[in-house]
């Protein structure tokens, strides 16, 4: 019982990331928050806040700093090893006392951002390495049926392979098509015959659009022992691309983050939490019964009554100390979908207009991006434009 006390004492809560500020375009303020959390916050949340920091740095145009942040988070999220004391604390005490390593969909998104940063550094091979790691992590979901169903990672791995002359590009493209078909058949958003996957090498200008706001993780059940996801509202549903005043088309979904979160499957910890919930309820009931019997002197024997009071009190204390709540820490600034648009554009400077539209196709002026892009005669130009206000991007 005493062993449970320190464990419960170190329960770690979700950092209060100012998501509304992030969505409003106050990236410097959110970055400042994340930097402060990195230094002063719970070390167990380091990967989570580093991911948020990386996103802000990307929005502020500091790709090198973003890469370092995502790399740091990837190191934590990709490490399987856990100390015995951490495992004991998470099992006996609060699950959220453990180091946040993210769910497989969060690991996949970390890989996505990290690969983009490496690509911008001019290292498509390292970008592919990050994606390969992301694909492996995506395969960690408990439900085997949903393993390796992230078309975005496969497609990007194929493109990176082509960019640096690595092997296996066609295999990645085929995996991307299979993943997309599977995901669509299992209620993921997107289109079954995605034109981008039909012609995966198309375009020397590739635009990546993290759109919307990703799912929220919350605790459900009488003892909050169940970790669940719910989608969050956001007006943006797709991106519309124009170059030099000419409308080229609309983005297509390659990764439905909400779907990826929903299809994680049950975890071993879920079973442990369920067991703890039963234990908590049982000890609570038994403790109350013993305590009432003892206090009411129902046995007629003073020694027995005293023993019942002590045992009842101990059981109630044990019940109160049993932490059943699920660890619901999550990466709160993820997008709801990642969409892609690729076009063949003549080399030179171009005026790029990205308009985010809602589900009915109405434009969202606040999220409109006017960008100047330079397309080289050889190679490819990749750009990441989230459905966020462009304020920081233009600074």
């Amino acid at each position, binding site marked *: 019982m005493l062993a449970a006390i320190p464990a419960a*004492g170190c329960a770690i809560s979700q950092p209060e990331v100012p998501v509304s500020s992030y969505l409003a375009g106050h990236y410097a303020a959110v970055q400042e928050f994340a930097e402060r959390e990195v230094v002063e916050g719970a070390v167990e949340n380091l990967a989570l806040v580093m991911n948020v920091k990386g996103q802000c740095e990307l929005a502020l145009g500091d790709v090198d700093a973003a890469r370092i942040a995502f790399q740091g988070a990837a190191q934590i999220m990709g490490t399987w090893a856990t100390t015995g004391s951490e495992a004991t604390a998470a099992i006996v005490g609060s699950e959220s006392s453990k180091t946040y390593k993210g769910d497989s969909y969060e690991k996949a998104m970390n890989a996505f951002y990290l690969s983009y940063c490496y690509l911008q550094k001019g290292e498509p091979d390292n970008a*592919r390495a*990050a994606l*390969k790691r992301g694909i492996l992590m995506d395969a960690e979901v408990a439900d085997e049926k949903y393993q390796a169903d992230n078309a975005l990672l496969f497609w990007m791995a194929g493109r990176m392979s082509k960019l640096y002359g*690595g092997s296996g590009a066609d295999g990645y493209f085929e995996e991307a098509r299979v993943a997309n078909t599977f995901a669509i058949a299992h209620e993921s958003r997107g289109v079954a015959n995605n034109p981008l996957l039909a012609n995966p090498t198309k375009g020397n200008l590739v635009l990546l659009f993290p759109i919307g706001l990703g799912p929220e993780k919350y605790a459900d059940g009488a003892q909050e022992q169940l970790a669940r996801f719910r989608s969050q509202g956001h007006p943006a549903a797709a991106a519309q691309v124009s170059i030099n005043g000419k409308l080229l088309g609309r983005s297509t979904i390659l990764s439905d983050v909400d779907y990826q979160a929903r299809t994680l499957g049950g*975890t071993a910890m879920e079973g442990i939490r369920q067991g703890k919930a039963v234990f908590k309820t049982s000890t609570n009931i038994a403790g109350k019964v013993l305590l009432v019997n003892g206090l009411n002197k129902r046995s007629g024997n003073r020694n027995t009554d005293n023993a019942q009071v002590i045992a009842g009190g101990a059981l109630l204390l044990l019940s109160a100390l049993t932490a059943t709540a699920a660890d619901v820490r999550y990466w709160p600034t993820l997008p709801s979908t990642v969409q892609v648009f690729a076009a063949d554009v003549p080399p030179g400077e171009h005026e790029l207009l990205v308009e985010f539209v809602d589900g009915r196709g109405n434009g969202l002026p606040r999220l409109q991006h006017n960008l100047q892009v330079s397309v080289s005669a050889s190679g490819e130009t990749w750009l990441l434009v989230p459905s966020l206000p462009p304020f920081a991007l233009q600074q």
Partner: protein
Amino acid sequence: MLTRSVTVGLLGLLLTACGSTRDTRVNPDAADSVTGTGLQSMDIRTMATRMAADIKEYGILAPSRDGARASFFIYEMVNDSSDTIDKTLVLTKLRTDLFKAFRGQVKILDRSANANDLVDAERRMKERGQVSGENNRKLAGSDFVLKGSMKSRDRLAGKLKSSYILVTFELTDLVTSELVWTNDYEMKTESEKSVINR
């Protein structure tokens, strides 16, 4: 008395659980206590030392009978693995160990973009008489090029994962395109996922 003892005991337990950190210098050849797959400092050091010793022992870069030194430059390292790496860290360490192994018996050329820019700028300033010295020597040509690659095979089954990494270096003759030397470094890690992360 009992209450005070219990309170002190609980506080002690809380401090034990929540405190204790360290910041210690460690031997870079020691196994990394920060676990995870991928190359560690000991791998990078061992690899560089072994490659430098082997390439010297092989003799391909030894000076000719008339004392002419062979020249080479390190071109790049391609990462085909599933681990992102700082390629310059690996190659810089290798270059340093090669330099130490040969002790001036071989010409190691710096063909980095940065070095090329510096050389161009210096030569221009000398041509204009802005600085002392003359451009009385040609830029050094290279006899060989040293390249590296890193590949991995990753396997995942349930709570177990293994990662095999193969780092290969090769020296190519820039006149004949003959592969004149190659060697590799291998490492493998196995990981078991804790129940709290499953």
